């Protein structure tokens, strides 16, 4: 009971608030946009035709109904929540009558796979290399650190673009866009999938890794001077054990927290990277939707990312006491 009341419930509540606040914001912002999807659709439909005003009016009403834009913004808001709780994100505006659910459903696995892989790999490699760098200071590690510090602030798309040019043009080794053959989980699909995902993954990995590296190195350096590491060093523990169980294990704790908090920016990076590489994930879909003023798709994706990121944070938060035996809540 205490567990539930004192620990899980407040966090679940927090999770709910995060989602409500986030979704409300994302509901409102597109509706403040000057780009009216009805006008756009009308423009498309009437482009080659001579129409009488009545016909235009009829078309407009029909579109409003289709797009769920009838009524005041408050009514729209509650209808939106109603649909949402029913698991329906509505129709796409740009690709009417496609359902947003279907569009997201198609893109989601790509993004999740890319994001999960690069985040975990970046995290692991960053911590390992960063801890090594903290452990063995010297010319080489300074060089690596220098490179990382330089790479870290470079915006995602620059790295993405450099890779794109280098490995699709000068050395035409990778496909220009995401190319996937065969049915999922067939050998051919996996082969083409890996082939297409390599560059976006490396881009995300490098940027993610650089920050993890910098952080791990700083934390590792601090940890090395801590009493328990010094004592273990004095006791002649082997380097590998010191590095893993003593330095890295302890530096991982703030890294876990940071990982939970940085899911949002990692997602942003994925968005840009996907767009550059023509990788058919959520990011690419979102960018297209924003350009087409496709509210429902934008909202669907933003909403999903809020829920996803909030849930990721919740999981990190809930699991933190399991990771760190010291943690006390007060």
């Amino acid at each position: 009971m205490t567990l539930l009341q004192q620990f899980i419930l407040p966090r679940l509540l927090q999770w709910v608030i995060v989602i409500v606040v986030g979704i409300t914001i994302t509901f409102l912002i597109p509706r403040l946009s000057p780009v009216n999807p009805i006008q756009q659709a009308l423009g498309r439909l009437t482009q080659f035709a001579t129409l009488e005003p009545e016909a235009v009016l009829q078309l407009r009403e029909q579109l409003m109904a289709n797009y769920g834009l009838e009524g005041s913004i408050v009514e729209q808001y509650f209808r939106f929540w109603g649909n949402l709780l029913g698991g329906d994100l509505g129709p796409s505006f740009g690709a009417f009558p496609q359902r947003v659910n279907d569009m997201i459903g198609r893109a989601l696995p790509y993004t999740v796979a890319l994001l999960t892989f690069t985040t975990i790999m970046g995290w692991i490699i960053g911590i390992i290399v960063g801890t090594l760098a903290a452990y063995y200071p010297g010319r080489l590690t300074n060089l690596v650190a220098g490179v990382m510090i330089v790479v870290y602030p470079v915006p995602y798309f620059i790295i993405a673009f450099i890779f794109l040019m280098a490995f699709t043009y000068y050395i035409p080794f990778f496909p220009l866009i995401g190319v996937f053959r065969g049915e999922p989980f067939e050998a051919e699909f996996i082969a083409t999938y890996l082939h297409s995902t390599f560059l976006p993954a490396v881009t995300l990995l490098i940027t993610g890794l650089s920050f993890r590296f910098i952080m791990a190195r700083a934390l590792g350096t601090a940890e090395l001077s801590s009493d328990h590491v010094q004592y273990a060093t004095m006791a002649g523990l082997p380097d590998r054990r010191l590095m893993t169980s003593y330095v890295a294990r302890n530096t991982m704790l703030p890294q876990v927290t940071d990982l939970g908090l940085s899911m949002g920016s990692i997602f942003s990076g994925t968005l840009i990277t996907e767009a550059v590489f023509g990788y058919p994930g959520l990011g690419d879909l979102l960018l297209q939707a924003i350009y087409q003023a496709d509210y429902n798709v934008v909202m669907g994706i933003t909403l999903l990312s809020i829920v996803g990121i909030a849930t990721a944070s919740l999981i990190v938060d809930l699991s933190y006491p399991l990771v760190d035996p010291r943690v006390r809540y007060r």
Partner: protein
Amino acid sequence: MFGIVGLVTNIRDLMKFSGAFRWGFIVLVFVFLMAGLSWFSPYEEDHRRDTPRGKPPLTEISIGRDDDGERIYARTLLGTTSQGQDVFWQLTFAVRNTFLIAGTAVFIGRSIAILLGMLTGYMGGVFDRVLSTIIDSLIVLPRLPLLILIAAILRGDITTLGLGVLLGIMDWAHPSKRYRAQVLSLREREFTHTAVFSGMNPVKVVVREHMPFLVPFLLADVVSGFLWAIGMEVTLAYLGLGQISVPTIGSLLYWGNYYNALLLNQTWVLIPAIAAAVFTVAGFYMLSQGITHYLDPRTRLTRLGVSDS
């Protein structure tokens, strides 16, 4: 201590103390000089067609005519863009404007962050819980999609400063949480009690006793703030959502990309802009490393030679 003389002394002291600070300082002075040079540019900020287009660095180019109508020739340091602008002078404008955007963003974001961080940290109770919950929610929100949307709404009307304000408004949640944690721990430190028993009122305690401890955090945050703001500026500009007619590091990249600089091997258009972004942020990073190290009481003690025997 906080006078000009004190500042100069501190900086000198820091330069001696920390290699990171030294390098960061030099890099930033260089970058600031670049920004300052913009006021001496022979070209106007938003002007195109000043030079021949797309010439590589150190080419001799015609830069106009003298009074007699004779062409004047000069070598261009970093080459020219496809829009007929001198890359070097464009870069000075770009650095200045990006600094303005990022600086505004950092200033606004950190002001909100400090204010909220301190408020929540000191007030505690329901106020803290409500505000902290909201802050936590905002941390989790993915900002880039929102930013792209807002930029799309304001585009055309958004000024350089406006973009800075917008970025600032979006970048305070994370630091304010950090300040709150810091304030919470400072509040329990013994010297805080000493200050209270010395009869200092809360404002004095915060300003005199706690602020100095927040400075390293602030500096570290300023760096990450700059990093984020520059990254966002560049990303928005790349997507064509910034004010691309104003030279910024991002719009330089945008135009370079727009005119297929990489395809045409006109790397001189892109490299200076990327380098400027990297140097600025790396400079700030090193600076903050140095200052943080310097202000750390533990290292300060060793520095002053009070070592254990």
